[in-house]
């Protein structure tokens, strides 16, 4: 359903493209007094997707929040995408979301039915995830914002950090890239409706199915590829793991329609922030890698897929099982001991 005022027109930047650069965030958090607690096994010092606090020998609490301005004009779809994106951080830690709180900012021109539809989209995804929205907080502001604060649970021994990748692992990515470029080009009406429908469905898709398969295998490390792009999140995984991540660029899944649009400069500003943050950690060894393809690797993804590392001998079997519910999943690279740089594009 289209609203009277186009939601995306109320937003300065769209979806995860609005995310503040990783480099900026690191500096903002420097020098604060914080308590330490041995039960906090993943905190903000780790640049991970969520925090993890051990409650007892069988249970750890995962907490995360994510919200952004409208990335689509359909309010129900916007609610679904924002919720799927927020819930994803729990899946990326290997956990299951259980409780959530709405975070909502309304701009004056929004009508009541628009707001209801956004919330309905959020509740729809929370229900699909098996989580309960127990409340929230709503304010007025210049541009609309929606998202969730999510709590989930995981066994303390099964937490999937973004820093556990090991030499010999293979990397699997579960959703194709190009969302930032396509949603930017959509603002110029340059994306055909079937392509838009495809990426909208992808963004609204929970990472639950991918997580449910992934946790059956000996996965060493996982993150979700969102605002910081494949390169940004990959860089964090490599840095945290002290390894090199080698990406076989020809195998990285992306929406084909995004490539010519990237060539034409329909690239969200967030992609340049990601490049600035991660580029020094990336070495390109394939001479035929086009600038447009490189731009897609730095493209911020809204509600992107999981990127995870697992032993080579398990990867084929895992991929085969994944393909049944997550057909876009692909093996995109492998992990070695650190050599030359954190990310190697081959």
């Amino acid at each position: 359903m289209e609203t009277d005022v186009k939601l995306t027109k109320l937003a300065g930047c769209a979806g995860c493209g609005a995310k503040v650069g990783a480099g900026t965030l690191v500096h903002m958090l420097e020098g604060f007094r914080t308590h330490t607690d041995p039960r906090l096994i993943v905190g903000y010092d780790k640049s991970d997707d969520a925090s993890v606090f051990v409650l007892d020998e069988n249970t750890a609490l995962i907490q995360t929040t994510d919200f952004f301005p409208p990335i689509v004009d359909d309010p129900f779809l916007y609610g679904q995408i924002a919720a799927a994106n927020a819930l994803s951080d729990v899946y990326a830690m290997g956990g299951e979301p259980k409780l959530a709180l709405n975070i909502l900012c309304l701009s004056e021109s929004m009508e009541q039915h628009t707001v209801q539809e956004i919330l309905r989209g959020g509740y729809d995804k929370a229900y699909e995830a098996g989580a309960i929205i127990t409340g929230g907080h709503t304010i007025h502001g210049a541009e609309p914002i929606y998202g969730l604060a999510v709590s989930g649970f995981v066994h303390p021994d099964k937490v999937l950090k973004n820093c556990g990748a090991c030499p010999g692992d293979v990397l699997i990515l579960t959703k194709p890239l190009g969302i930032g470029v396509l949603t930017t080009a959509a603002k110029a009406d340059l994306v055909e409706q079937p392509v838009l429908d495809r990426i909208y469905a992808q963004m609204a898709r929970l990472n639950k199915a991918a997580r449910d398969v992934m946790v059956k295998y000996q996965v060493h490390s996982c993150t979700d590829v969102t605002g910081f792009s494949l390169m940004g999140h990959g860089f964090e995984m490599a840095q945290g793991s002290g390894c090199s991540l080698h990406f076989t660029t020809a195998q990285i899944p992306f929406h084909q329609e995004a490539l010519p649009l990237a060539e034409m400069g329909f690239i969200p500003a967030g992609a340049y922030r990601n490049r600035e943050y991660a580029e020094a950690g990336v070495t390109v060894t394939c001479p035929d890698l086009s600038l447009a393809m490189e731009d897609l690797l730095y493209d911020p993804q809204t509600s992107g897929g999981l990127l995870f590392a697992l032993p080579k001998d398990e990867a084929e079997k895992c991929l085969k099982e994944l393909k049944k519910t997550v057909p876009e999943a692909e093996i995109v690279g492998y992990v070695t001991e650190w050599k030359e740089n954190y990310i190697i594009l081959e």
Partner: protein
Amino acid sequence: MKTIDARGLSCPEPVIMLRKAMASGENAYQLIVDNHASKENTTRYGQSQGYQVSVEMQGTEYTLTFKK
């Protein structure tokens, strides 16, 4: 030479403005933007349309010249 002032605008507006202007098919254009992403994006657009692009930076503003 046609000059497009895209200061104060963020992606993808400057590219859309440049695209509209270039529809007239002239051999040279000038564009002013005030952020890095817009400078990069309009450079890519110009190059994709077969223009040679040169960039001059003054303070926080970029003046781009597109020539065929």
